[in-house]
């Protein structure tokens, strides 16, 4: 009993690695940020490593004392760092030693920095957790290669997390990972930020809101078919479309062709801070994605009290209860039918009741607690030496297995060379951040620190303004 209590209270030092982080905005970025903030609240230490964004390079501190390393490796395609296989070994090793990390948590399949960091962490004996955020295909050339890379990374991972059961199935099939190692922890939404409007918008005009990137994957082409039909059938319906992308031109053409200028508003890119104000001006949220592992946009809309109409793809059916969503096949006529059904359902919807239910169902603190359980499990995994790991890699494929083994052996040799060149004792440990917030009764307010003297200017900026909007 005592032992499990001790283990429950054990605080971890976690390194989050991904190419996708602030100042970029997106599902993965928000997930990492919110999860890190909630883990910091629970008393753990979290450090984030990502690549430099333009001039934003070096060490930065975010709310709550979250330390972010913007490593100056240039991104080359789709925000991904240029893959050099061994180039990131020195800096990752330095960060792992100086921050006294014990778990490395990588995010997103399409992040080269994540895969490299996980590989280096494994070879150095750290426990590794991987979270997959999207669904991917199996048949095109790009997917086949990426799946092989994923198989390599996940061959030796301690535990894995997926954001929905559909995503777990997809990941397990793509990477040959044992299903027992995969946990399902859905994303959450900041219900404190996404609250319904104090006064409901009037129901004389029904407003349907769409907020998404206007790309093929998000079903922008479906919108082009659906909007004119819905406008024709319902003279009192208006559309508000937020977001930008290559398909915006098609939507503008559709608007011109059917003379819907006064009924369809194209807002362009909406900053994340203004998403709520756009959502609360509507009654129905329309999501037309062709593929989705988990849709945080639906959570945000439901938290604001909007009824959702969505395509039945991927993990969408798992997101909200059936009375908050109307599902349709990704086909224009079925979607139009579902929108009609949603319009008839509107009088029975109470936004505040919906918001309260979402608050009970989804919270980032809950995600953090569940993630901690995964970390505890990962730490309990037995330590493995190189030979045992190599046998796992060999089983990845006839040729691929041998290539993976060679890559890992070379990595191991490089690591030992680095140990000779720059011994671990020479790398000084970085002091932990001290925060003296003006908070009353908040647990874990002032965290333990190593050296009070190493109190840098960064902690002064933390003192100035601390908006804790997660709680």
């Amino acid at each position, binding site marked *: 009993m005592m032992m499990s209590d001790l283990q429950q209270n054990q605080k971890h030092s976690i390194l989050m690695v991904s190419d996708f982080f602030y100042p970029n905005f997106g599902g993965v970025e928000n997930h990492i940020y919110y999860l890190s903030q909630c883990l910091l609240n629970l008393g753990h230490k979290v450090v984030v490593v990502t690549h430099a964004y333009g001039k934003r390079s*070096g*060490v930065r501190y975010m709310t709550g004392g979250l330390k972010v390393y913007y490593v*100056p*490796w240039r991104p080359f395609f789709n925000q991904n760092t240029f893959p050099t296989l061994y180039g990131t070994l020195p*800096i990752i090793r330095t960060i792992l030693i100086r921050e006294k990390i014990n778990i490395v948590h990588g995010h997103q399949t399409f992040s080269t920095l994540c895969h490299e960091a996980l590989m280096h962490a494994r070879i150095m004996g750290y426990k590794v957790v991987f979270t997959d955020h999207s669904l991917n295909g199996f048949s095109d050339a790009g997917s086949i290669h990426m799946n092989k890379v994923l198989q390599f990374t996940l061959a030796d991972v301690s535990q894995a997390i997926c954001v929905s059961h559909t995503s777990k199935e997809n990941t397990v099939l793509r990477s040959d990972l044992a299903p027992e190692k995969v946990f399902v922890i859905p994303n959450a939404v900041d219900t404190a930020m996404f609250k319904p409007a104090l006064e409901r918008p009037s129901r004389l005009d029904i407003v349907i809101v769409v907020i998404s990137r206007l790309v093929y994957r998000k079903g922008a082409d479906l919108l082009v078919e659906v909007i004119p039909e819905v406008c024709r059938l319902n003279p009192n319906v208006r559309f508000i479309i937020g977001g930008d992308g290559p398909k915006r031109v098609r939507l503008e053409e559709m608007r011109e062709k059917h003379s819907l200028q006064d009924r369809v508003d194209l807002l362009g890119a909406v900053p994340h801070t203004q998403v709520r104000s756009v959502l609360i001006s509507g009654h129905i949220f329309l999501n037309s994605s062709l593929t989705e592992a988990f849709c945080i946009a639906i959570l945000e809309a439901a938290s604001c009290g909007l009824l959702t109409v969505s395509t039945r793809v991927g993990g969408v059916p798992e997101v909200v209860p059936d009375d908050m969503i109307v599902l349709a096949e990704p086909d224009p006529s079925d979607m139009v039918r579902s929108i009609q059904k949603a319009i008839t359902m509107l009088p029975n919807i109470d936004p505040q009741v919906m918001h309260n239910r979402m608050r009970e169902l989804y919270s980032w603190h809950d995600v953090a607690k569940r993630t901690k359980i995964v970390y505890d499990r990962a730490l309990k995994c037995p330590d493995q030496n190189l030979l045992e790991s190599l046998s796992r890699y060999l089983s990845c494929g006839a040729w691929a297995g041998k290539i993976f083994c060679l890559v890992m052996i070379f990595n191991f040799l490089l690591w030992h060379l680095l140990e000779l060149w*720059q011994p671990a004792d020479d790398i*000084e440990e970085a002091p932990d951040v001290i925060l003296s917030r003006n908070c009353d009764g908040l647990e874990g307010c002032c965290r333990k620190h190593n050296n009070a003297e190493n109190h840098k200017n960064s902690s002064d900026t933390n003192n100035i303004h601390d908006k804790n909007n997660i709680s």
Partner: protein
Amino acid sequence: MVEFSISNARYTYVHDQKYPSENADMHHIILRRSGSKYIFVYASALLVLACAIYLYFLEEKSISLVYYSLLFDIFLVKLLLRKPVNKESVVIMPAFGVQLETHYMSGKVVRCFVPIDKILKPVLLECVTPVTCYWTLSLIVREESEMVLVFKNLRPPIKMLVHVWKALCAATDNKEETCTHAK
């Protein structure tokens, strides 16, 4: 009069107050000469030259190969062993300012003076490069967009930098206090 010193494998930190009556505080970081680096560089240069000569005499390659290898050797030696720094010092005179000195092996000394009024704050920063992360001590200077590095060539460990930083903070804080009192 040496007040305090710390040393590790590569650097030695010395804090002395040679002129206590004049209120000047001196901090030195001295680089320990390591013979191994010289041996390694000269050995590899010799190896390259030996290979070139072997190829010329025994395998009948052209003489230009020897010349190129000689050029490469000179370039390598210049790159890796250039302008060796012996010591970097910080002289803190609370009434006037801070003098940063770099002493080279050849005896040359480069000095840089920062008046006390211009120093906003001394800061300890973590610098991240593509392969490593290390601590530096810098001065934030008024009306300048760039910070002034206190130790421009050497990278002493944080436990040595902390003492210099504290001394700089003490010197600049005192000045700020007198300013507010005057107002």
